[in-house]
């Protein structure tokens, strides 16, 4: 599904964040990426999403080198293949929940029928016409999950999705993410600092200066 081939990235000022990173994520696999702050976890997600380009190496999604695509082509690939969940939710404040969730469907010219189903799956049935300001943080992240999966992406990228939530809500959300990824047959990458969160993944990748090291999840509920 996703293949990283000797990917390196340095930022202005010469700070090297990724160096010869190589990894293959299989279809249906859900991994958590952990590591100290500034090690390059978010950079990795940006490279996978085609929002940034590596200095060397290749990022392949389904055999296509996204890092070689121009902006428009990368955008189209992202639109179709990827789903995103952010720490800060990023729900458009002036659209209703239904409209927020329908965005990827409309972008991909798909019927919006699945919106209600997704709302139900994330436990927000009957609230489609509400606006984001009427929701709690946990509920907003549920909307983000629905939006990330509504168009059946092959790969879901979650960047600290529970960083802003209390432990109980975080637990619910992590379970929901896993369940939805699995139900939709997608692959997933969860970037987190939390071992509890990482434990919800199939495997944990620890990012160090030397690359990604795969470990088994230490905790699973």
């Amino acid at each position, binding site marked *: 599904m996703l293949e990283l081939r000797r990917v390196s990235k340095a930022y202005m000022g010469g700070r090297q964040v990724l160096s010869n990173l190589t990894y293959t994520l299989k279809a249906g696999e859900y991994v958590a990426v952990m590591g100290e702050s500034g090690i390059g976890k978010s950079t990795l997600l940006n490279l996978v999403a085609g929002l940034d380009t590596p200095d060397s190496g290749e990022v392949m999604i389904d055999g296509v080198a996204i890092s070689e695509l121009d902006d428009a082509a990368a*955008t189209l690939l992202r*639109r179709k293949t990827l789903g995103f969940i952010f720490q800060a939710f*990023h729900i458009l*404040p002036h659209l209703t929940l239904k409209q927020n969730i329908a*965005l990827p469907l*409309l972008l991909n010219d798909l019927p919006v029928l699945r919106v209600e189903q997704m709302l139900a799956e994330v436990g927000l049935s009957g609230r489609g016409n509400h606006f984001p300001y009427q929701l709690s943080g946990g509920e907003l992240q549920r909307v983000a999950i629905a939006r990330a999966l509504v168009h059946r992406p092959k790969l879901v990228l979650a960047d600290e999705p529970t960083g802003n939530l209390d432990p109980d809500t975080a637990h619910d959300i992590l379970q929901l993410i896993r369940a939805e990824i699995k139900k939709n047959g997608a692959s997933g990458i969860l970037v987190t600092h939390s071992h509890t969160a990482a434990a919800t993944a199939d495997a944990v990748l620890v990012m160090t200066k030397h690359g990604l090291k795969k470990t088994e999840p230490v905790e699973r509920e």
Partner: protein
Amino acid sequence: MNAPILSGWLLLGEWRARFLQAIVAVMAIAIGVALGFSIHLVNAAAFNEFSAASKSLSGQSDLQVHSKQKYFDELIYPRLAQFEGVRLINPVLEFMVPIPGDHNSGNDQRLRILGIDMFRAAGMSPDLLGVPAEDRLMDGLSDDAIFLSPAAMEWLHVKQGDTVQFNVGTQTLELRVAGGVTRARAGQRIAVMDIGAAQWRFNYLGLLSRIELKLDDGVHHEAFKTELEKELGAQFFVTEIVEQEARLASMSRAYRVNLNMLALVALFTGAFLVFSTQALSVARRRSQFALLRVLGFTRQHLMRQVVAEGIVLGVIGSFCGLALGYGFAALAIRFFGGDLGSSFFPGIQPDLYISPAAALVYFAVGLGVTILGTVLPARDAMRIAPAAALKSSQENNVIDSVSVPWSAIVCLSLALLLAQLPSVYGLPVFGYLAIALLLIGGLALMPRFAAWFFSFALYWANRRFSCGKLHATTLMVLARLANVPGQASVALSGVLASFCLMVAMAIMVLSFRVSVDNWLEHVLPADLYVRAADSGKQGGFLPDEQKFLTELPEFSRIDFLRYQQLVLDPRRPEITLIARPIDSADPRNTLPIIGEFIAPEELSGHERSIWVSEAMVDLYGYSVGKQIMIPVGNRLQSFIVAGIWRDYGRQFGAVQMQLSDYQELSNDMSINTAAVWLQSKVTMDNAYDILHQLPYGDTLEITQSQTIRDTSLKIFDRSFAVTYLLEIIAVIIGLLGVAASFSLQMLSRSKEFGMLRHIGITRSQVLVVLAAEGGLLTTLGVMLGFVLGWCISLILIFIVNPQSFHWTMQLYMPWDWLFLIAGVMLISASITALVAGRRAVSGSVIRAVREDW
């Protein structure tokens, strides 16, 4: 991608959230379009009506024969009648006659009378035929009968059968209103009578003002015209209707174009408001746009989205503007007539007519400036780097992106270059372009300038309070202004744009007014001016009457002046010839001469001096020392241009010569006006009594020079009333722009304020910060606006005005007015910042920092 639905959702979402700002932007565009469209409608309606009225006087002739001296000997008539190719010939005597009554109102108190041969006019200009009473069908040929148009009857308060009085020289003439000129146009004040009777009763015996010709079918008009002009000689010219229309258009064109330009200023500030609304809207939505990019929006989609938002504002604003413009125009015509305060179209009552092409043009202009105001923010939205924007709260750089100093310097240099170029078809096109570039260049320099200015202020404050005493609020204010010049500049530019336009207009109008006032003082040195109506081709005062006046002991000095209208170029309006005693030792004592001049002793014995107005230099290419030919008496006479004088009274040109030269060359000893100086012991009331006791005292028009000055300045103010109105509207739109940009900034900074409240800054301290930011930004905007406005005023005064109206003026600064406006701007901007800030800090602190956006 289902773009329309998505675009619609995003658009409605944005409108739902920022409805008030969107409405303000729509209103600004609507007002700008409305002003431009209404001015166009009124001007077009007035011009069309005026043109139609003039055409109705000219009838259906193919050609018209005129003389350079307005009236010519009717002996030419039989010659023309025998010309091969002439099918119909119609002689016309046309003149203006003063109506007895109040002449101090500043309104035109003269009636246009046409003397026609009703049998010939029936075939050429049937609209001019009077309709007599059924039992007096021969009134059309009667020497005591006159026919009045409905507008003239209403104006003179007379009806059929009444009598009406006219002044002819120092005599009074009474004529019977025999009927109406029923086919005259609405508002057209004319009178018609038999040509023989008109020649006799108004002392134009043997004179005509034009001869209208209808040519045989198949005659080539141009060839016939050339041949006729050759046959008649240099004293005559032959015109076609098209040339007359061009002449009419040229009379008011500069005025109309300048008014339209002022309306565009309002539209420009409106566009600026759209720009600031969109720019700050993009700034606020950076993270939202970044998310959309992550979800699959391409850069082009984002650009289109922002432009589409602008287009919707532009379409709604422009449509509302057209409707509003029609309403404004209807009201303006109803309450002010068709001339919008100018004197180009007196008495006109035009009907409004919407030309689809004009409506489309104004709609396109409204939409165009809105799109222009949207392009930069859209470009900024397109350039958002999604990953960075989602992670951090980078501020927008809309202004920064165009603030590269070289682009500003190119604009300013180009402005300087364009300001040197001459007019295009009598219009200051390059002058206006120079103003636009100056404004754009100035605005483009703002972010850099603001950054420099506030960085220096911060540096100074840090040094001044080096021992750590710099107050946190001072630090916050200066640091933000110095380090985020992009957002500061959006608000600053709103202040700058409106203030600099206001400064420019205020300096120009005051300079013009003071110059006119000084000029009036120079050209009206006498205590009283006594005028008599023309008596035919001659002035009202004949030699005996002049002698009688000079012998009156109550007057210490009397100067006699002879005014005459001349046509030097049939494509241009008439010029005025003024013959009067001019101080030969130093002509500057009599005339407001500008620049170099030739003293009379420098000319050889046979050369005669003539002094020409500035308009003659622009329109006819005259210059000091040039030999020119002017029709005086019955032929063209040679003169040397001895000087150029400033004339605010006659836009289309005037020349002055010694009265003795005029009388010697023309043998015309009559004069129109006597300038009277009173003996020191004689009061004004005494002087009036003495003049009224003259045998012809009742026919005289006596005016004090002070009254003429007051009336002239009243007319000046009236003609600038529309200008003031447009200026005020532009300023209101500018202030709305400031309000919109401050309010949007506050909303986008609610998270920052929430954070500040969390770390212990009180609500009132936040408000102090905001008021200080608003005040400092406005102060800088006012300072820079003053410099820019001063530069624009120089272009208006020294380029636009001379190229439009052919007169120059001196520069005067309205300091008190400028300080007042600066104070108003400063206070209103600070209050706006405070009000907007109160909203921003009144919300929940916790929610403010927790919110995504």
